[in-house]
């Protein structure tokens, strides 16, 4: 008991007898998660301020005789005249590996009922993105496990790849698949004992989403065993706009910690359209001048400063960003989509029509692009799928023309036939990412014409049979493909022999 008393006495002794200076203000008005405050003459831009009852705020508008603050936390207890004090600190969130497997709010506080997070470090939520000197170009792959993406629109570590499409086209599914695939790769890599293996930790930031959707995402990750490598930052639709505004930056801070400490991380912002809407709401309440679609003038900077924080650092780690943007009626030329398209290093466009035709993932080959990812693609994928994007784009064009007449020449018919097979082959169920070596094997079989005798409707079945054949009977060969990451003559011969063996055993 005396130890406890001593601890308290020591703590009291620590608190110096010297006067402590505080800069204070009083709430003038409080509405919609935003407070206007008199005083606070020493407050700095973006400084954290303390409200009574434990709520904190961020000073966003420094005006001549008042300060506009967004309030993070419960605003219901605040009233006019309440005292607000400056803290001299920028908003920070807890970071570190202790957050893995946990769900936190925009301030990094746990919301999953699993108890407090034992995190020793904090990291500023707003930070200037790494400069030019410290960066390194993207050259290491980040496999999504989705064949259509890894072969045609490859993503590299440190890249920013936008996932864009209408609602219900599978945007979130792609990112969850990617997170699951990282977890699978991490497990294999860590079990192999390879000292050079670099695991990828994932951060999933849910902005303005329904709580039920967030629960579904967490369940999917948990079921796939990916939650232990993932941090969920949740700012659901029920949270105030300030929390929704700050959540992606909190997620970026958590991811940046991994990057700064020599690790690789992947961050998903789901989604930035809702983030822009939350920021618009705050800006309008703060009476900032509004521009196009009532968004404030700095809505571009809002996203550019966030996405610029994704990078690959020389001698350190990387942070790969997968922002999601929801379009309306497939309109990619709207304000927020065009802004983010111009910031990112490419986009994966998902089409409603393809989705409704049962082509899932509904990736539009024509509109999707990866500007830096090809440098990160492994040689084996390039060897087996280098021309796929062109072939598929040509197929889509031909298919559109073929609808007008049935009198097609043999070459066109062959192209259409091949295209249909590729489309069927790229169909992939949700939450079932494919390891890259298996993708190489399937694409190799397709390139060598092993699927040509198979009826188009049965391509999926044949592909599943081939995958099962390779995973159950050719595991060493797959490991060789994975470790070599390129197909030499010997490996090609082995793959060819394996495909022949499968062909002889497979009956459609």
């Amino acid at each position, binding site marked *: 008991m005396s130890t406890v008393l001593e601890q308290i006495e020591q703590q009291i002794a620590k608190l110096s007898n010297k006067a402590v*200076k*505080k800069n204070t203000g009083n709430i003038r008005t409080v509405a919609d998660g935003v407070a206007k405050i008199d005083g606070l*003459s020493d407050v700095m831009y973006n400084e954290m301020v303390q409200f009574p009852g434990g709520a904190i705020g961020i000073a966003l508008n420094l005006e*001549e005789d008042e300060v506009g603050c967004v309030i993070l936390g419960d605003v219901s207890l605040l009233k006019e005249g309440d005292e607000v004090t400056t803290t001299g600190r920028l908003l920070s969130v807890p970071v570190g590996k202790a957050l893995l497997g946990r769900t936190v709010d925009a301030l990094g506080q746990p919301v999953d009922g699993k108890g407090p997070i034992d995190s020793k470090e904090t990291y500023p939520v707003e930070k200037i993105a790494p400069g030019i000197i410290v960066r390194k170009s993207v050259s290491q792959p980040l496999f999504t496990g989705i064949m259509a993406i890894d072969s045609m629109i490859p993503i590299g570590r440190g890249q920013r790849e936008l996932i864009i499409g209408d609602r219900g086209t599978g945007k979130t599914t792609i990112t969850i698949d990617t997170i699951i695939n990282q977890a699978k790769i991490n497990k294999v890599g860590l079990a192999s004992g390879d000292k050079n293996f670099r695991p990828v930790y994932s951060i999933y930031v849910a902005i303005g989403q329904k709580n039920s959707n967030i629960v579904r995402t967490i369940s999917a990750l948990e079921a796939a065993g990916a939650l232990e490598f993932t941090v969920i930052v949740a700012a659901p639709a029920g949270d105030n706009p300030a929390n929704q505004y700050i959540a992606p930056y909190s997620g970026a801070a958590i991811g940046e910690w991994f990057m700064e400490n020599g690790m690789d991380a992947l961050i998903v912002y789901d989604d930035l359209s809702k983030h822009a809407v939350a920021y618009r709401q705050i800006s309008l309440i703060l009476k900032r001048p509004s521009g196009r679609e009532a968004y404030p003038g700095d809505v571009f900077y809002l996203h550019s400063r966030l996405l610029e924080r994704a990078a690959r650092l020389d001698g350190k780690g990387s942070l790969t960003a997968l922002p999601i943007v929801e379009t309306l009626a497939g309109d990619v030329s709207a304000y927020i989509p065009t802004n983010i398209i111009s910031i990112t290093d490419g986009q994966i466009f998902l089409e409603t029509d393809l989705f409704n035709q049962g082509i899932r993932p509904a990736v539009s080959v024509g509109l999707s692009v990866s500007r830096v990812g090809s440098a990160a693609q492994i040689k084996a994928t390039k060897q087996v799928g280098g021309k796929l994007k062109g072939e598929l784009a040509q197929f889509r064009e031909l298919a559109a023309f073929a609808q007008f007449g049935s009198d097609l020449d043999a070459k066109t018919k062959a192209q259409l036939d091949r295209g249909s097979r590729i489309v069927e082959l790229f169909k992939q169920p949700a939450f079932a990412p494919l390891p890259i070596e298996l993708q190489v094997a399937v694409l190799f079989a397709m390139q060598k014409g092993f699927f040509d005798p198979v009826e188009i409707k049965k391509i999926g079945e044949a592909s599943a049979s081939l995958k099962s054949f390779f995973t159950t009977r050719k595991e060493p060969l797959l490991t060789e493909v994975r470790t070599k990451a390129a197909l030499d003559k010997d490996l090609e011969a082995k793959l060819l022999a394996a495909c022949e063996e499968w062909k002889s055993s497979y009956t459609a």
Partner: protein
Amino acid sequence: MASPAKIAQQFARQLFSVSVIDGVVSAERVVGVLEFVEKHKVANPVMVLKAYHRLIAIELAKSIALVEHAGAINQTTLSAIEAAMSRKYGRAVKATAQANASLLAGMRVHVGDDIYESSVAGQLAALAASV
């Protein structure tokens, strides 16, 4: 077009700027401003005067050190506080004492929107926040 509240605020700021001489609120100028508002047809006079009052009150608070104390405080301490604050803020600061038993012991000095906390209540609050 700017809202009436904004126009009143801007006008109050102009009135405030003419009321201050060398960083100090001039009582004569304030009387002059009040006479001006009374004589001339100023739009939204209540709104203007409220905003003006607020600006003057903020400015005046910068020249007053409100010393909250628990227990007795003598004139020497008040003079010392006046001298220290005048030195710190570069203007004449006048100290006024106000008893506040809830501080338990020590004192709290308010100058404008700055607070200098040296009370037991303040230290206990800081302790509670740090636990």
